[in-house]
Protein backbone atom coordinates (compact mmCIF):
# COMPACT_ATOMS: atom_id res chain seq x y z
CA UNK A 1 0.00 0.00 0.00
CA UNK A 2 1.25 3.45 -0.89
CA UNK A 3 2.09 5.70 2.05
CA UNK A 4 -0.03 8.41 0.47
CA UNK A 5 -3.60 8.15 1.61
CA UNK A 6 -2.69 6.42 4.84
CA UNK A 7 -3.30 8.12 8.20
CA UNK A 8 0.35 8.82 8.76
CA UNK A 9 1.63 10.79 5.81
CA UNK A 10 1.53 13.99 7.88
CA UNK A 11 1.29 16.52 5.08
CA UNK A 12 0.75 19.48 7.37
CA UNK A 13 -2.75 18.96 8.71
CA UNK A 14 -1.59 19.31 12.33
CA UNK A 15 0.12 22.72 11.73
CA UNK A 16 -3.00 23.79 9.80
CA UNK A 17 -5.20 22.81 12.77
CA UNK A 18 -2.98 24.61 15.31
CA UNK A 19 -2.50 27.67 13.08
CA UNK A 20 -6.20 28.08 12.33
CA UNK A 21 -7.19 27.64 15.99
CA UNK A 22 -4.58 30.17 17.15
CA UNK A 23 -5.66 32.62 14.43
CA UNK A 24 -9.27 32.50 15.65
CA UNK A 25 -8.26 32.81 19.31
CA UNK A 26 -6.00 35.76 18.48
CA UNK A 27 -8.71 37.64 16.57
CA UNK A 28 -11.22 36.96 19.34
CA UNK A 29 -8.86 38.23 22.07
CA UNK A 30 -7.77 41.20 19.90
CA UNK A 31 -11.33 42.53 19.60
CA UNK A 32 -12.03 41.72 23.26
CA UNK A 33 -9.08 43.97 24.21
CA UNK A 34 -10.23 46.67 21.74
CA UNK A 35 -13.67 46.57 23.35
CA UNK A 36 -12.32 46.67 26.91
CA UNK A 37 -9.80 49.45 26.28
CA UNK A 38 -12.19 51.44 24.10
CA UNK A 39 -9.71 51.45 21.15
Amino acid at each position, binding site marked *: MSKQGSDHVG*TGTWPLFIGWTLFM*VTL*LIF*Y*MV*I*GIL*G*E
Partner: protein
Amino acid sequence: MSKTRAFVRENSMTLVFIALFVVSLVGEALAGYFDFNAQQTEHHQAAYTFGRYLVSSQFGVDVMENWQSEFLQFASFIALAIWLRQRGSTESKAMNEPSIPSDAKDKIGGHAGPHTPPWARAGGWRTAVYSNSLLAVMLFFWLGSWATQSVTGWRTYNDDQQTHKEASVSYSSYLGTPGFWNRSLQNWQSEFLAVASISLFTVYLRQRGSSQSKPVGEPHLSGTGSDD
Protein backbone atom coordinates in the same frame (compact mmCIF):
# COMPACT_ATOMS: atom_id res chain seq x y z
CA MET B 1 3.63 13.87 -5.51
CA SER B 2 5.36 16.91 -4.01
CA LYS B 3 4.74 17.78 -0.36
CA THR B 4 2.90 20.98 -1.33
CA ARG B 5 0.61 19.19 -3.77
CA ALA B 6 -0.09 16.49 -1.21
CA PHE B 7 -0.88 19.17 1.41
CA VAL B 8 -3.30 20.99 -0.91
CA ARG B 9 -4.97 17.77 -2.03
CA GLU B 10 -5.43 16.39 1.47
CA ASN B 11 -6.68 19.67 2.95
CA SER B 12 -8.55 21.21 0.02
CA MET B 13 -11.88 21.45 1.86
CA THR B 14 -10.41 23.45 4.75
CA LEU B 15 -8.16 25.55 2.50
CA VAL B 16 -10.97 26.57 0.14
CA PHE B 17 -13.26 27.53 3.01
CA ILE B 18 -10.44 29.53 4.63
CA ALA B 19 -9.94 31.35 1.31
CA LEU B 20 -13.69 32.07 1.07
CA PHE B 21 -13.60 33.31 4.67
CA VAL B 22 -10.71 35.70 3.94
CA VAL B 23 -12.34 37.09 0.78
CA SER B 24 -15.65 37.57 2.62
CA LEU B 25 -13.97 39.21 5.62
CA VAL B 26 -12.08 41.66 3.38
CA GLY B 27 -15.35 42.42 1.57
CA GLU B 28 -17.14 42.94 4.88
CA ALA B 29 -14.34 45.24 6.08
CA LEU B 30 -14.52 47.39 2.92
CA ALA B 31 -18.31 47.56 2.81
CA GLY B 32 -18.50 48.20 6.56
CA TYR B 33 -15.87 50.93 6.29
CA PHE B 34 -17.73 52.86 3.58
CA ASP B 35 -21.05 52.39 5.37
CA PHE B 36 -19.58 53.54 8.69
CA ASN B 37 -18.02 56.68 7.19
CA ALA B 38 -21.27 57.54 5.40
CA GLN B 39 -22.99 57.49 8.80
CA GLN B 40 -20.18 59.54 10.37
CA THR B 41 -20.64 62.19 7.68
CA GLU B 42 -24.40 62.15 8.21
CA HIS B 43 -23.87 62.84 11.92
CA HIS B 44 -21.17 65.48 11.25
CA GLN B 45 -18.50 63.24 12.83
CA ALA B 46 -14.89 62.74 11.64
CA ALA B 47 -14.37 59.98 9.07
CA TYR B 48 -12.12 57.02 10.01
CA THR B 49 -9.15 55.79 7.98
CA PHE B 50 -9.47 52.17 6.85
CA GLY B 51 -6.78 51.09 9.33
CA ARG B 52 -8.58 52.86 12.16
CA TYR B 53 -11.85 51.15 11.20
CA LEU B 54 -10.19 47.70 11.24
CA VAL B 55 -9.21 48.14 14.90
CA SER B 56 -12.55 49.63 15.95
CA SER B 57 -15.30 48.11 18.06
CA GLN B 58 -17.68 48.88 15.17
CA PHE B 59 -15.92 46.35 12.93
CA GLY B 60 -15.26 43.98 15.85
CA VAL B 61 -18.90 43.69 16.87
CA ASP B 62 -20.03 43.03 13.30
CA VAL B 63 -17.50 40.20 12.93
CA MET B 64 -18.05 38.69 16.37
CA GLU B 65 -21.84 38.65 16.32
CA ASN B 66 -21.68 36.31 13.34
CA TRP B 67 -18.87 34.19 14.76
CA GLN B 68 -20.69 33.49 18.00
CA SER B 69 -23.81 32.30 16.23
CA GLU B 70 -21.84 29.90 14.01
CA PHE B 71 -20.17 28.32 17.00
CA LEU B 72 -23.49 28.16 18.84
CA GLN B 73 -24.86 26.29 15.83
CA PHE B 74 -22.03 23.74 15.87
CA ALA B 75 -22.02 23.36 19.67
CA SER B 76 -25.78 22.83 19.86
CA PHE B 77 -25.74 20.49 16.87
CA ILE B 78 -22.87 18.39 18.24
CA ALA B 79 -24.44 18.17 21.71
CA LEU B 80 -28.05 17.50 20.68
CA ALA B 81 -26.98 14.92 18.07
CA ILE B 82 -25.89 12.72 21.00
CA TRP B 83 -29.53 12.21 22.06
CA LEU B 84 -31.83 13.38 19.25
CA ARG B 85 -32.63 11.58 16.01
CA GLN B 86 -34.00 12.40 12.58
CA ARG B 87 -34.97 9.21 10.82
CA GLY B 88 -33.43 9.02 7.35
CA SER B 89 -31.15 12.06 7.77
CA THR B 90 -27.42 12.13 7.00
CA GLU B 91 -27.04 14.30 10.09
CA SER B 92 -28.44 11.71 12.51
CA LYS B 93 -27.37 8.45 14.04
CA ALA B 94 -29.59 5.42 13.45
CA MET B 95 -32.78 5.19 15.50
CA ASN B 96 -31.56 2.13 17.40
CA GLU B 97 -28.03 3.43 17.99
CA PRO B 98 -27.27 4.15 21.67
CA SER B 99 -26.72 7.77 22.71
CA ILE B 100 -23.28 6.96 24.11
CA PRO B 101 -21.49 4.20 22.16
CA SER B 102 -19.61 1.36 23.84
CA ASP B 103 -15.89 1.73 24.59
CA ALA B 104 -15.25 -0.91 21.95
CA LYS B 105 -17.06 1.07 19.24
CA ASP B 106 -15.28 4.26 20.30
CA LYS B 107 -11.91 2.43 20.37
CA ILE B 108 -11.00 3.85 23.77
CA GLY B 109 -9.05 2.44 26.73
CA GLY B 110 -8.36 -1.26 26.28
CA HIS B 111 -10.07 -1.23 22.87
CA ALA B 112 -7.52 1.19 21.37
CA GLY B 113 -6.04 0.32 18.00
CA PRO B 114 -2.40 0.75 16.94
CA HIS B 115 -2.99 4.33 15.69
CA THR B 116 -5.46 5.48 18.37
CA PRO B 117 -4.67 9.01 19.68
CA PRO B 118 -2.72 8.76 22.99
CA TRP B 119 -5.40 10.45 25.14
CA ALA B 120 -8.07 8.08 23.79
CA ARG B 121 -5.88 5.16 24.81
CA ALA B 122 -4.83 6.58 28.22
CA GLY B 123 -8.16 6.07 30.06
CA GLY B 124 -9.19 8.11 33.13
CA TRP B 125 -9.47 11.90 32.96
CA ARG B 126 -7.45 12.20 29.75
CA THR B 127 -9.87 10.03 27.80
CA ALA B 128 -12.83 11.82 29.43
CA VAL B 129 -11.44 15.20 28.31
CA TYR B 130 -10.56 14.00 24.82
CA SER B 131 -13.98 12.34 24.43
CA ASN B 132 -15.62 15.78 24.80
CA SER B 133 -12.94 17.97 23.20
CA LEU B 134 -14.88 18.88 20.04
CA LEU B 135 -17.89 20.17 21.97
CA ALA B 136 -15.64 21.88 24.53
CA VAL B 137 -13.75 23.84 21.87
CA MET B 138 -16.96 24.84 20.06
CA LEU B 139 -18.44 26.04 23.38
CA PHE B 140 -15.24 27.97 24.09
CA PHE B 141 -15.44 29.79 20.75
CA TRP B 142 -19.18 30.42 21.12
CA LEU B 143 -18.92 31.92 24.62
CA GLY B 144 -15.64 33.70 23.81
CA SER B 145 -16.94 35.37 20.66
CA TRP B 146 -20.29 36.16 22.31
CA ALA B 147 -18.41 37.84 25.18
CA THR B 148 -16.34 39.80 22.65
CA GLN B 149 -19.52 40.76 20.77
CA SER B 150 -21.00 42.02 24.04
CA VAL B 151 -17.96 44.17 24.93
CA THR B 152 -17.47 45.67 21.46
CA GLY B 153 -21.26 46.09 21.14
CA TRP B 154 -21.27 47.99 24.44
CA ARG B 155 -18.60 50.37 23.09
CA THR B 156 -20.49 51.05 19.86
CA TYR B 157 -23.75 51.49 21.81
CA ASN B 158 -22.12 54.15 23.98
CA ASP B 159 -20.59 55.84 20.91
CA ASP B 160 -24.12 56.10 19.49
CA GLN B 161 -25.39 57.45 22.79
CA GLN B 162 -22.65 60.09 22.71
CA THR B 163 -23.45 61.02 19.10
CA HIS B 164 -27.08 61.56 20.09
CA LYS B 165 -26.03 63.45 23.24
CA GLU B 166 -27.46 60.80 25.54
CA ALA B 167 -25.97 59.21 28.68
CA SER B 168 -23.56 56.26 28.44
CA VAL B 169 -24.67 52.96 30.00
CA SER B 170 -22.69 50.45 32.09
CA TYR B 171 -21.67 47.09 30.60
CA SER B 172 -24.24 45.22 32.70
CA SER B 173 -26.99 47.65 31.62
CA TYR B 174 -26.02 47.11 27.97
CA LEU B 175 -26.57 43.35 28.40
CA GLY B 176 -30.21 44.12 29.16
CA THR B 177 -30.77 46.32 26.10
CA PRO B 178 -32.89 45.18 23.14
CA GLY B 179 -29.91 46.13 20.93
CA PHE B 180 -27.66 43.44 22.43
CA TRP B 181 -30.35 40.75 22.19
CA ASN B 182 -31.35 41.83 18.69
CA ARG B 183 -27.75 41.38 17.52
CA SER B 184 -27.60 37.93 19.17
CA LEU B 185 -31.01 36.50 18.31
CA GLN B 186 -31.11 37.67 14.68
CA ASN B 187 -28.09 35.42 14.11
CA TRP B 188 -29.25 32.53 16.28
CA GLN B 189 -32.56 32.17 14.46
CA SER B 190 -30.83 31.75 11.09
CA GLU B 191 -28.42 29.14 12.46
CA PHE B 192 -31.20 27.01 13.94
CA LEU B 193 -33.20 27.38 10.72
CA ALA B 194 -30.21 26.09 8.75
CA VAL B 195 -29.69 23.06 11.02
CA ALA B 196 -33.38 22.15 10.98
CA SER B 197 -33.31 22.43 7.17
CA ILE B 198 -30.22 20.24 6.59
CA SER B 199 -31.53 17.70 9.10
CA LEU B 200 -34.86 17.38 7.29
CA PHE B 201 -33.89 18.06 3.65
CA THR B 202 -31.29 15.26 3.57
CA VAL B 203 -34.06 12.74 4.24
CA TYR B 204 -35.75 13.39 0.87
CA LEU B 205 -33.24 15.31 -1.26
CA ARG B 206 -29.93 14.17 -2.75
CA GLN B 207 -26.72 15.62 -4.16
CA ARG B 208 -24.83 13.02 -6.09
CA GLY B 209 -21.16 13.00 -5.10
CA SER B 210 -21.49 15.03 -1.91
CA SER B 211 -20.45 13.64 1.47
CA GLN B 212 -23.45 15.54 2.86
CA SER B 213 -25.95 13.41 0.92
CA LYS B 214 -27.16 9.84 1.07
CA PRO B 215 -26.63 7.77 -2.08
CA VAL B 216 -29.17 8.96 -4.68
CA GLY B 217 -31.02 5.64 -4.72
CA GLU B 218 -31.14 5.21 -0.94
CA PRO B 219 -34.76 4.95 0.33
CA HIS B 220 -35.92 8.08 2.20
CA LEU B 221 -36.49 6.64 5.64
CA SER B 222 -33.81 3.98 5.62
CA GLY B 223 -30.03 4.13 5.44
CA THR B 224 -28.38 6.80 7.56
CA GLY B 225 -30.42 7.75 10.59
CA SER B 226 -32.71 4.72 10.33
CA ASP B 227 -32.85 1.35 12.05
CA ASP B 228 -31.21 -0.38 9.09
